[in-house]
C-alpha cells in the first residue's frame, strides 16, 4: 500500500461567523503531484496555511509524513517546503543572503547552504542578481527566489501556492522540469493554481474545493468519469461529444453544480 504524505481529517477553520474551511478530508500519497483547485475565496490558501503551520485549524487534524503537525511541528516543518501566498521574503537581504539564511534556518551547515544557494541561483537564472536586494527584484524574480528557498533543504513535501503566477514562460518551463524531477525522486507536491492548463499538465491527482468543502477528489480520469456520469444523469454533456474533458470543463461542471453559475450577457448592461 502507498504511504500517505498528507492526511487531513475534518479540517475546519472559521473566522468569526465565516466558515472558510469546513470539514475537509484530504489524502495525498507520497510522490504524487497534487493539484488543489477552487474559485476565489473557496478556502485554498486557508487550507494550505493550516497545512504548513501558518494558521491554526479550528477543528480537525493534519498528518504529514505520518506525523501530527500539531504535536511534532518542528520535526514536520523540517521535512516540508513552502511557497506561501506572500512569499515570506526578507526584502532587505540580497537573494544570496536570503537563501543562505533560509538554509541555515533549516539546519544546513554553512558550506552546504552556500553550495545549494549558488546552485539554486544559477538554476533559477538569478545568479547575476544574487547581490541585489530582494526589494529591487521583479515579482517573477521574487517568486523564483521563494521557490528556491522552499527547496533548499530538500523537502519531502512541497506546498506551492500559485507558484507560476508572474513567472515568465521560460522560467516556468524550467520550474516544471525541476518539480517533475522532485516527484520522480519521491517528493510530494501540493499545488494550487488558477491556471488550469498547468494543473492539468502537471498533476496526476486533483481536489476541488468550493465554499470551504471538498466537492471532488481523485485522479483526472476519475474526475472525468464522475463528471460524465453526472452529465448522463442530467442529460447535458459539459464538453464536446467524443472528446476527452479538459480540466477546465471538469472544474466548471463541478463548481457549477455547487450553485456557481456563469453570468448572462444581459447583466451589467451599462458597461460599454
Amino acid at each position, binding site marked *: 500500500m502507498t504511504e500517505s504524505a498528507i492526511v487531513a481529517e475534518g479540517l475546519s477553520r472559521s473566522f468569526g461567523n465565516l466558515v472558510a474551511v469546513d470539514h475537509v478530508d484530504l489524502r495525498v500519497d507520497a510522490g504524487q503531484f497534487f493539484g488543489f483547485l477552487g474559485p476565489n475565496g473557496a478556502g485554498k490558501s486557508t487550507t494550505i496555511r493550516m497545512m504548513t503551520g501558518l494558521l491554526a485549524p479550528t477543528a480537525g487534524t493534519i498528518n504529514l509524513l505520518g506525523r501530527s503537525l500539531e504535536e511534532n511541528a518542528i520535526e514536520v516543518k*523540517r521535512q516540508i517546503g513552502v511557497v*506561501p501566498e*506572500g512569499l*515570506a521574503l526578507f*526584502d532587505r537581504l540580497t537573494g544570496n543572503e536570503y537563501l543562505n539564511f533560509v538554509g541555515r*534556518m533549516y539546519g*544546513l551547515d554553512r558550506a552546504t547552504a552556500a553550495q545549494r544557494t549558488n546552485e539554486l541561483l544559477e538554476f533559477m537564472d538569478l545568479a547575476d542578481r544574487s547581490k541585489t536586494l530582494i526589494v529591487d527584484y521583479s515579482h517573477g524574480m521574487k517568486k523564483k527566489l521563494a521557490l528556491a528557498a522552499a*527547496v533548499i533543504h530538500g523537502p519531502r513535501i512541497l506546498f506551492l501556492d500559485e507558484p507560476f503566477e508572474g513567472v515568465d514562460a521560460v522560467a516556468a518551463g524550467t520550474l516544471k*522540469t*525541476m518539480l517533475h524531477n522532485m516527484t520522480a525522486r519521491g517528493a510530494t507536491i501540493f499545488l494550487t493554481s488558477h491556471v488550469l492548463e498547468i494543473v492539468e499538465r502537471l498533476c496526476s491527482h486533483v481536489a476541488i474545493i468550493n465554499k470551504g468543502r471538498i466537492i471532488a477528489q481523485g485522479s483526472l480520469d476519475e474526475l472525468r468519469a464522475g463528471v460524465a456520469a453526472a452529465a448522463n444523469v442530467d442529460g447535458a454533456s459539459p464538453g464536446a461529444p467524443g472528446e476527452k474533458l479538459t480540466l477546465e470543463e471538469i472544474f466548471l461542471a463541478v463548481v457549477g453544480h455547487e450553485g456557481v453559475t456563469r453570468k448572462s450577457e444581459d447583466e451589467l448592461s451599462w458597461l460599454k
Partner: protein
Amino acid sequence: MAEMSNSTSLGRQVLLVILLRWQTFRNGLRSQSEKMHVLGSVALGLFFTALTLGGSFAIGFGAFEIVKLQRWLILSLMLWGIFMFWQFVPVLASQTNPGFDGRNLLRFPLRFSAFFLMSAAYGLADPFALAGILWHIAMGIGISIARPDVKWWAALALTVSALMNLLFNRMMFSWLERLLAKRRTREIVTVVFILFFVCIQFSGLILQRWGPALRNAVENSAGVWRALPPALAGTAIEHAANGDSAAALMTIGLLALYAFAFGGLFAFRVHAQFTGEDLGESAAPVRRKTVAPRAQVSAPASIAAPAQSASAASPLSGLISAPVAAIFGKELKYLYRNSMLLMNIFMPLILIVFFSMTASVPSRHGGASPFGRFSGSFAYPGAVAYLFLLVMNFCPNNLAYEGRGTERFFLAPIKFRDVMLAKNLFHGALIALEALVVLGVLTAMGHPPGLLIILTTWAALPFAALIHFGVGNWLSLQYPRKFEFGVRRQRPSGMTMVISFGLLFAVMGTLAAVGAICVWLVGLWLLPIVYLALSAGALAVYRLMLEGTSHQAVAQRDSLLEQLSR
C-alpha cells in the same frame, strides 16, 4: 445607452476621502490589538495634551508680560521657538508624525486641488502642529489682554504665521521624502539629524557655558533673524503696537508671501506625486552580466539531500544554534542597511567628543570646568544610560522590519523563542559594544571612569537590558507594528509606547532608588554587588518570559501575520 459618471465636486471628493479614512479606522477597531493601540494613543494623547496646555499657559502669560514690558525682541524669539518646535521636533521624533501616502487614491478621478488640500491638511493631524497652533492662539490671547488695541493685528499676524508654519512643515517633509528616497542621501541626512539631535540634547550645557556670548550674538544679529518668516508676526505686532499700521500690513503681507512661496514649493512636490511619481526605494538598475545560454537545464543535484540537524551546524556549537546564528547575522545585515539604527552605533563617539570638548574648555569664570569633574564620575554611566535608551527604542517592536519575512519564522523548523533570543542577543551585543567604545574613548581622552563606576555600570546594565528584552519581546508579539525601511514617520502601537514609557521609569527608578539606599546606608562599593543580584533575578525572569514567547507567538500568529505581512 450607458451613462457616464458625473464629475465629483472638490468638497465631495475631500469628504469621500475623509469617509474612507474613518471607515478604515473603524474597521481597524475590529481587532483587539488595534483597540489597544487606540487606547494607548489616547493615554499618550492625554499626557501630551496636558504638556501642551501647560505650555499654552506659559506662552500666553509670557506674551502678556512681554507686550506689557514692550520687549519685542523676546516676542520674536518666542515665535522662533514655536517654529523650531513645530518644524524640527517632528523630524527628530519621527515615530509620532503621521504620514500621508495618497498614491492609493490616484486610481480615482481625484482633482489635484483635492489631493493638495488633503496633503496639506494632513499636517494638522500632527500633534506637534496642533501644539504649535494652540501656542499661537495662547500668544494671541496674551497679547490681546495686554494690548486690546492690537488684538485684530495680532490675530491676523498670528493666523498667517500659523499658516506659514503649516505650509513650511508640509513643504519640508515632502522634500525630505524626496531626498530620503535615495539610500545614500538618506544616510547623509540621517547623520545631520543625529548631530542636530545631539546638539539639542546639550543645548542646556551650551547655554550654561556660552550663554552671555550667545545673547550678544542674538542681539547683534536681530536685524537678520527678525526679517525671517518665523519672527515676522512679532515684528508686525510691534509695528501695530507703535501705531505704524502701514508697516504692520506690509510685514504681514511679506509673511503671507513667504507662506505662499512655501505652499508653491509644497504644491510642486504634491503635483509630482499626483502625476504618478513613485518614491518607492529602488536601487539603480544592476547591469546584467552576459551569461552564456545554458544548453540544458537540470535541477540542482543537491536539492534532494535532506537537511542536517540544526545543532550540528552551529558555528558556535554549544553556545547558540544555527538558526539563532542565522537570525543574528540577518539582524547585522539589517543594521547596516538601516541608517537610523546604524547611527546609534556612532552616537557614543559623537557624545564622547562632545563631553571631552566641553570638559577641556576652561570655564569663563576661571578654574576647572564643572563638567570636567562631572565627566570623571558620572559621564560614563550617563552616556551608557543614554545609549541604552536609544538601542532599547527598537526592542518593544523588534519584528517591525521583518515584513512578509515574518511568515518564514513560522514556516521554519524553529521555536519562536530562538527568533527572540537572536534579536535580544543582537541588541545586547550592540549595547555591550557601545559601552566598551564609550569606555575606550573616555579613557583615551584622559577622563577614565573609576573602577567602581565601571563595575557598577556593567552590573546594572544586564538588569535593565534583560527586563527590557523580556517585556519588549512580549510587546513585540502582542502589539506588533510594521515599519518600512526608509520611511521616517512611523510609530509603534500606542499601547507599546505607554508600556515602554512606564517600564523605563520603573527600571531607572528601581536602579536609582536601590543605588541611593545602598550609598546612604553602606557606601558606593556595595552597588555593583546589589546590581549584580538584581541582574541575576532579571535573568531568571527573562528566561521565563523567553520560554513563553513560543507559546505566545503561536497564540498571536494570526494577528502577527496580519499586522506584519500585509
